[in-house]
């Protein structure tokens, strides 16, 4: 069957990352309009390197407009990178087309933010989950039906929901359908873009627990994109912090949250309110001045220099490179030794 053609030609060594991207860039061209006469190039993602280990979770954090969603969309090849390599099991897939692209997408799937927007309102739960199987003509009708039942069971949807439509489901149930759909083709990697943001607070933990269970049981690797830092810390093994299209800090989740090095990571962690009034009243909150610069007109030198409390002259002139500062930790800042 098709699955056999998908097996990598050479078995991957245990140490090699499952998914590795390097120098990933995405430039959007804002066309000239009545009000903006000049065509402008927006560097949405400007040279991103990431490695995702088998069975691990990589958290991608940053504020809106930092390029984390565009990066996620390039990882599943919904967006064509302007330049850069995407290596899955060591094979470059960034230029894949036709059958190669379809084979890639079977292995790298996506869970979207808002399940009420990403599910077709006119398709039943069964049809939604079955669609990827139908499109890739996997097995016969009965096998696909059995597979849908199995997937629904896996994500915790009762079988009597199969004939329901998205509007008849709660937010949490809809996101379970979105997850079942992403699981349908037994992918190796799932890119989850803000999977809990659109959900009610009391339902978020259900979805987070489900994703962790799936990882434990099926060995799936996740790229978890979110601005919810405490959830990222909970689910991720490694974390990459993005600011204005670039990664400013990368490393093991526990270490980054315990001891952030980049001033932006520090400010981001300090800005998150802690659900403990006693701690909150004692806590010193570093308030960043100003806002995210316009990515169409980034500052010279370090992108964070306009808001950085530790800024010096060199930061405004020379953009810091991402460099290794300790075992497994990289940071892009002139002020970090």
């Amino acid at each position, binding site marked *: 069957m098709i699955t056999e053609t998908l097996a990598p030609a050479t078995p991957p060594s245990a140490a090699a990352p499952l998914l590795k991207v390097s120098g990933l860039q995405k430039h959007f061209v804002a066309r000239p309009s009545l009000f903006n006469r000049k065509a402008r190039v927006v560097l949405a993602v400007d040279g991103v390197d990431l490695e995702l280990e088998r069975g691990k979770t990589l958290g991608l954090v940053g*504020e*809106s407009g930092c390029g984390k969603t565009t990066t996620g969309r390039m990882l599943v090849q919904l967006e064509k990178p302007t330049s850069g390599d995407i290596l899955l099991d060591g094979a470059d897939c960034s230029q894949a087309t036709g059958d190669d692209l379809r084979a890639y997408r079977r292995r790298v799937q996506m869970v979207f933010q808002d399940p009420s927007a990403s599910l077709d309102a006119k398709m039943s739960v069964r049809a939604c989950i079955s669609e990827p199987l139908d499109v890739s003509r996997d097995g016969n009708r009965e096998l696909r039906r059995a597979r849908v039942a*199995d997937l629904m*069971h*896996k994500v*915790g949807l009762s079988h009597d929901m199969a004939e329901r439509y998205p509007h008849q489901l*709660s*937010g*949490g*149930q809809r996101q379970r359908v979105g997850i079942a759909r992403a699981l349908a083709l037994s992918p190796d990697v799932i890119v989850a873009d803000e999977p809990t943001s659109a959900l*009610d*607070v*009391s*339902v*978020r*933990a*259900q979805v*987070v*627990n489900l994703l*962790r*269970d799936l990882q434990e*049981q099926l060995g799936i690797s996740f790229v978890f994109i979110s*601005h919810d*830092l*405490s*959830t990222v*810390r*909970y689910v991720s093994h490694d974390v990459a912090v993005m600011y204005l299209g670039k990664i400013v800090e990368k490393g093991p989740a526990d270490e980054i*949250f*315990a001891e952030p090095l980049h001033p932006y990571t520090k*400010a*981001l*962690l*300090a*800005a*998150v*309110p*802690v*659900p*403990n*009034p*006693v*701690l*909150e009243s004692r806590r010193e*909150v570093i*308030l*960043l001045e100003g*806002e*995210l610069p316009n990515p169409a007109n980034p500052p010279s030198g370090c992108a964070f220099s306009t808001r950085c409390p530790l800024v010096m002259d060199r930061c405004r002139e020379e953009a810091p490179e991402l460099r290794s500062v300790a075992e497994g930790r990289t940071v892009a800042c002139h002020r970090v030794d």
Partner: protein
Amino acid sequence: MTATAVLERPQEFVPDAPLLSVRDLTVHFHTKRGTVRAVSDVSFDLHRGERLAIVGESGSGKSVMSMSLLQLVAYPGEIVDGSAVLEGRDLLALKGRELRNTRGGAVTMIFQDPMTALNPVLRIADQIIPPMRRHLGLSQAAARLRALEVLRRTGIPDPERNIEAFPHELSGGMRQRVLIAMAVVCRPRLLIADEPTTALDVTIQAQIVALLKEIAEQEDSAVVFVTHDMGLVARFAHRVAVMYAGRIVEIGPVEQIFADPQHPYTQGLLASIPAIDGDKPSRLWQIDGSPPDLADVSLGCAFGPRCRAANSLCRTIRPMLERRAAGHEGACWVTPPKPGAVPRPEVRFDH
């Protein structure tokens, strides 16, 4: 000696004179599916300068409740019962000129989305100055001076220039600052903020919350702060009211609610949030199921179907708010043990 001390004492320390007294507030929506009981019998007091957080998830009635304090509930919604007495006047009974004088004057509101709350075709000046002329009776020049001063205090750079800007020329964070300036410029006694930072990024959210706290203190305004974020509650509020299915299920001082939550819903909410430091549990505590449909009338506790401690009493009779500690009330028949060691509820896998 004692006499002077008493005289110096500001009014907010007199415990039996609340600024706002809400009693039995009930709001229904008349829909094709039947009556949706969005808010049921909500009662609370708010003192001068106090910051009360209303916590709940979407559909809990927190927004409708706070909007109805200014009668901002349109058809098919209807305030069917209750009163909200602010300094001797019932806000829910105001009509015509009196209502217009109160809205934007003694009581103001900050909405979630600053883009839709500002008029896109008017300059900031033309949105911030007229309310002051109406409510404070200031001249155009005096109102403009005060507007510039408040804009500066809310952190708007170069207010002289930005007061002439249109909303689309400002960023999201700046627009929210303008809304805050507009909300405090008439020195309201009460400020209602409905998820004022939900549309913003964390670093901007931190700026806005710090600003709101500071400026409410300066103007001595009481704040009703509607949110679903327990972290923001901890950072901002003096007191917390937790709403579930249109009712307050727990209310109390912020330290008490976090240290010793009395309602299983509050306990579950707090336990389901992963921490930003310390140990990671192998599983998050989860509240199973989803919030109830408010068009269904059910006996008993609305949280019952999702509660691990529910018994037959919970299913038949709804618990009322009862005193648990000083100023701390909870509505629960059985206050079960707090979520500690998290049991795995059910294994859903085949093998």
